[in-house]
Structures are given as structure tokens and as C-alpha cells.
């Protein structure tokens, strides 16, 4: 802020006060808590070794790839419950053409992105045209896409899953984009000087950072930039905050929402591409409940369920908490059955905390 925009009534708000009115505060605090907790409980179990860190970051990254566009959509006041089924569907679209029809992997991946984009467009168009709640429309898509995946897959292959996709993908130029690694050289160097442990055979414990983590960080930064520094971002906030007011001011609310439905569908396709190329298999049941996990991450991240308020950075921390807790429970040897109890409770607490933060922000500062 420049000197011109000073007002004697503008009390110097303390750093803490400013911080307390940020939407992502709850998620950052939660992440710190979770880290401290597992540092104490699981300190010696290897959760915070190089291998352990990459493991939980990979879990976080996959969810975070969904959470960033889901956050934008929720800020615009809409839900997409079809994300999970879309992942299974996208996986089939990659596997069937490659394995059965002999397409090159890059072509089937492109097909998957294109078809999912159209599906997202149809979701958005239906919501905008009918005026029905997106909760209902995409709940329908959730079931339809799952059914379509099962029907198509069994109809063509006679089974509900395919494996051995590595065969076809390992030499494809598109493979490193989704299943590759980056920062291999620095990591080798860090292992040389002893920062990263080595395996028994003398190789570094990790050979690089999985690409999914780059996608996660990249998409979060992109979403944050869109929200805070573009016209489109202003329209997202307005569409969720008060759609009628936005429309009266000439904001293309329908176009904004449809675009965001396309984004969430494309994120599901990206998730599927990474999963299929990393694991080498596709399954019609993939992505089950991912829509809810993404919503949990976004809500922990401080986004308002009713729209108009939130952040992509918060969703990133929400996804981080998710990964740390899931892998932390695994590393400490706690029965993983307790994971869902923990995440559910965490979400409710986060919502309580975030509504407190938001009320603070809305009070005259």
C-alpha cells in the first residue's frame, strides 16, 4: 500500500491480527499440529526420513491435484461430486484404447482429457441451465459415470480391470510427465553428503521427487494466481458470493461456473493419468470417495461451503494434513481403521475454527 492510501483511522493491525483473518490459517495451524503430533509419536519410525516424506507428499499431491480446482469451484458456490467416478472413467479411457486397440499411450491420455473435459462441460451446462443444485446434478453424474465405466469396461474386455499398462507406457514420451521424477541430480548429491539416507545396496533412499508433487504445487500456484490476480478470479468470488449481484454487474456467471466444472473434470483426468501410468493398471472402482476427500481438504483449507470465500493455498494445506495423517497412522502402526474417524473429526473442528476466523474477518477491522 502506498503512502497516498493512508488513513489516520487505519490502525496498525498487528501481524497476528492480519494473519487471523486469512482463510488458510486453520489449515496451516492444523498442519503444524499434525506435524508436531507425529514428530512425537512417530519420530523414530521413518515417517520423516526422505522416503517417508516422499510417501506422504505423494498421497497429499494426488489429493491436492483434485483439491485445487475443487476449491475454485466451491468458492464459486458449486460442488462436483462426480470427481471420484470421473477418475475411474478416465482410467478406463486410457487403458482400453491402449491395451485393447493398440493406441499409443499419449493418444489415449489425450482422449481421456478430452472426454473428461466434455463431461465436465456437460455437468456445468446442466447446473447452469436447469438451475438445479450442483449437489444433485453431480450426484447423478457420480452414479452415471461409475455405471458407464463398468458397462464399457466389461463390455469390451469382459473384466473390470486391466494391468500391464507399463508395457505400453514405459517408452512413451508422455510417461515422464505423469509417472516420472524430477530433482534426481540434487537428490543424488544430497545422498552423497549424507543428508539423505542410502539403501543397503548403496543407492539413495529415493531416486527423485515424483511428478505428481510438481503438478500439485504447480496447480495450487496457478489456482492462487487465478483467484487473487485475474479478472476470472474476481468473477469466481462474485459468482459464489452473490450470483445475482455479479450478473447485474455484467459478470458472466454461467461461463465462469462451467469453466470451473471443466477444470475439476480435467483434474480428475490428470489424477487418473498419474495413477494409471505409475501403477500400470486401471480399475473401474478407482477414485472411489475421492470427491469427498477433496471436499474435506478444501473445507479444512478454509473455503466456505456456501461459496464466496476461500483459498487454494488452504486446500493445499488441507491435502498435506490428509497425507501426513494417513501415512503417519501407517508408520506408527496404529490400526488404519482409525484414519477416517480422525479425518472426519478434523473436518468438523476445522469448520468450527474457520467460521470463527471468518467472523473475525467480517468484523470491522
Amino acid at each position, binding site marked *: 500500500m502506498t503512502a497516498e492510501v493512508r488513513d489516520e483511522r487505519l490502525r496498525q493491525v498487528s501481524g497476528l491480527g492480519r494473519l487471523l483473518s486469512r482463510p488458510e490459517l486453520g489449515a496451516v495451524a492444523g498442519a503444524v499440529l499434525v506435524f508436531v503430533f507425529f514428530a512425537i509419536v512417530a519420530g523414530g519410525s521413518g515417517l520423516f526420513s526422505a522416503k517417508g516424506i516422499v510417501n506422504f507428499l505423494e498421497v497429499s499431491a494426488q489429493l491436492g491435484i483434485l483439491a485445487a480446482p475443487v476449491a475454485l469451484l466451491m468458492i464459486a458456490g458449486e460442488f462436483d461430486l462426480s470427481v471420484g467416478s470421473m477418475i475411474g472413467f478416465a482410467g478406463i479411457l486410457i487403458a482400453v484404447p491402449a491395451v485393447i486397440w493398440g493406441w499409443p499411450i499419449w493418444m489415449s491420455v489425450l482422449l481421456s482429457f478430452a472426454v473428461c473435459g466434455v463431461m465436465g462441460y456437460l455437468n456445468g451446462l446442466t447446473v447452469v441451465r436447469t438451475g438445479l443444485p450442483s449437489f444433485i446434478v453431480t450426484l447423478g453424474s457420480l452414479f452415471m459415470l461409475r455405471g458407464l465405466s463398468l458397462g464399457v469396461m466389461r463390455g469390451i474386455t469382459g473384466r473390470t480391470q486391466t494391468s500391464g499398462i507399463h508395457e505400453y507406457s514405459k517408452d512413451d514420451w508422455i510417461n515422464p510427465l505423469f509417472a516420472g521424477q524430477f530433482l534426481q541430480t540434487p537428490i543424488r548429491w544430497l545422498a552423497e553428503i549424507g543428508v539423505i539416507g542410502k539403501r543397503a545396496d548403496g543407492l539413495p533412499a529415493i531416486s527423485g521427487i515424483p511428478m505428481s508433487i510438481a503438478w500439485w504445487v504447480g496447480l495450487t500456484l496457478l489456482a492462487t494466481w487465478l483467484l487473487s490476480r485475474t479478472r476470472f478470479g474476481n468473477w469466481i468470488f462474485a459468482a459464489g458470493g452473490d450470483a445475482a*449481484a455479479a450478473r*447485474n454487474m455484467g459478470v458472466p456467471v454461467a461461463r465462469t461456473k462451467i469453466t470451473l466444472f471443466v477444470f475439476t473434470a480435467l483434474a480428475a483426468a490428470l489424477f487418473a493419468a498419474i495413477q494409471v501410468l505409475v501403477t500400470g493398471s486401471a480399475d473401474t472402482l478407482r477414485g472411489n470417495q475421492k470427491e469427498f476427500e477433496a471436499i474435506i481438504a478444501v473445507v479444512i483449507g478454509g473455503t466456505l461451503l456456501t461459496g464466496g470465500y476461500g483459498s487454494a493455498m488452504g486446500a493445499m494445506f488441507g491435502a498435506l494434513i490428509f497425507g501426513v495423517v494417513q501415512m503417519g497412522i501407517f508408520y506408527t502402526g496404529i490400526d488404519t481403521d482409525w484414519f477416517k474417524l480422525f479425518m472426519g473429526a478434523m473436518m468438523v473442528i476445522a469448520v468450527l475454527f474457520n467460521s470463527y476466523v471468518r467472523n473475525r474477518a467480517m468484523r470491522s477491522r
Partner: protein
Amino acid sequence: MTVPLVELRSVSKYFGKVIALNGVSFDVQPGEVHCLLGDNGAGKSTLIKVLSGVHTPDAGEFLVNGEAASFGSPKETLDRGIATVYQDLALVPLMSVARNFFLGREPTKRVGPLRQFDIDMANRTAFRELRDMGIELRDAEQPVGTLSGGERQCLAIARAIYFGARVLILDEPTSALGVHQASVVLKLIVQSKARGIGVVFISHNVHHAYVVGDRFTILKRGKSSGTYAKNEISRDQLLGLMAGGKELIDLEQEIAKLGNGQPASGPH
């Protein structure tokens, strides 16, 4: 008199069998506040919608700067500098003052290959424009939800002026406000007038209208009861005309009866 910015000549508007407006004439000059007064159902809303391009009149003429005009949509009207500030104000409470100020018309700047929203310019401009109109903000980044009702009204008016309004149509801008808040809005109306903007001030509050108005048109049941300059009519005469003097006298007598005799039955 100069050429009116906007003029309606014997305009009528029908909705099926209902005659919402019947031969109403109305005009606004540059630098003038023309008050449109009337009770609920008098046709004020219909007249606003004709002026703002939502409805096209079924009979009569619509002139802008002395030339016949017809508008297909509110957007076209707005492009000709006729801006309407409705009661809902078209503000998003959770968004900052600056983001609301530029909602739908965000300034952009080039950053490398990208066009991005110039948030600094938006903050600076919103703050300066509002200050120039006598609205002291604490911070252009504060959410609109933290503003008072009067400040919100002023923000909506300032926004319309900044984006080139030459005619401002204000729909009940003071009706939901307390005395102090209303006076802030009334001051802004006088300022707009001083800038040469023609203001159409719709109200059913004669007290507010009389303070700032130059001329007054009273609507009753879809018809105009005449247009009066301020020096032709007193506040009480205006009040009588608007509410229907007879109705007020009847009401007074009824209330007097209630006070004298029978105790009121029940809480209502």
C-alpha cells in the same frame, strides 16, 4: 431550460389488463435532482424500469439528449450513461471494497505474456474515488460486509459515477437507513448534482426528498399528479399530495377515536 438528459413524454406501460403507467411525462436536466415520489404501487418501479431499459414503453416517447431512443436491454442504457442503482446495490459482501468497485470491469495490466488484474490500481482508485466523494474508508481491502448501509449505498453510487454515469437513477437509496446514514447518502446526491449529473431520486420519504430535490413529480396509481419546482410547493403540500390529504385526515380521526374511547383489543 437546456435539453434534458433523459425525457419521457406521455409514456404508458401495460401488463395485460393492468395499466402500470398512464401517460406519464418525466425529465431530468444536467445538474438537477428530480424526485419521483409515490406510495407503494404508484408505478415508481415500472417507471424506473422504463428509464433503465428493462421495459420498453407501450406508448409515448423516450428521448435521450433530445433524440428519440429505444433500448433493448439495461446494458445498452448503461452504455449511454444512464445508470440505475437498485435497492440490492449489486454488491458482494464477502469481497473487498475495491473488488466490488471494479466488479465486472476489472482493470488489467500486462505482466510478461499474461494479462492480470491490477489489484493495486483497483485499491488505489477505489480508495481515492470514494474519498473524493467524501466517503472516508479505512481500507479499500476491507470486505463490503464490514461497511454500514449508508457506506454501501455510497459505494454503489460512486461506482456508477466513476464508470461514466451522466444520469443516476437511485431507487429508494435512503429508505433502509438511519438519520445519520441517510444524511451521508443525501450529501453524495448533492455532490453528484454539482458534477453536472442528472439524478432521479425515487423515494416515498418526502423529508429526504425535499432536502435535496430541485423538482418533484408525484405518481399516484400509475398517473402523474404533476411536477413542481421546489419554490412552487412546500413540504407539507407535497406530503399531502403524495399520501392523499383525505386519507391522512381520515387516519387522524380514526386514531383519535381509538385514543379516546375503546381500549385496543389485544396486542395488535
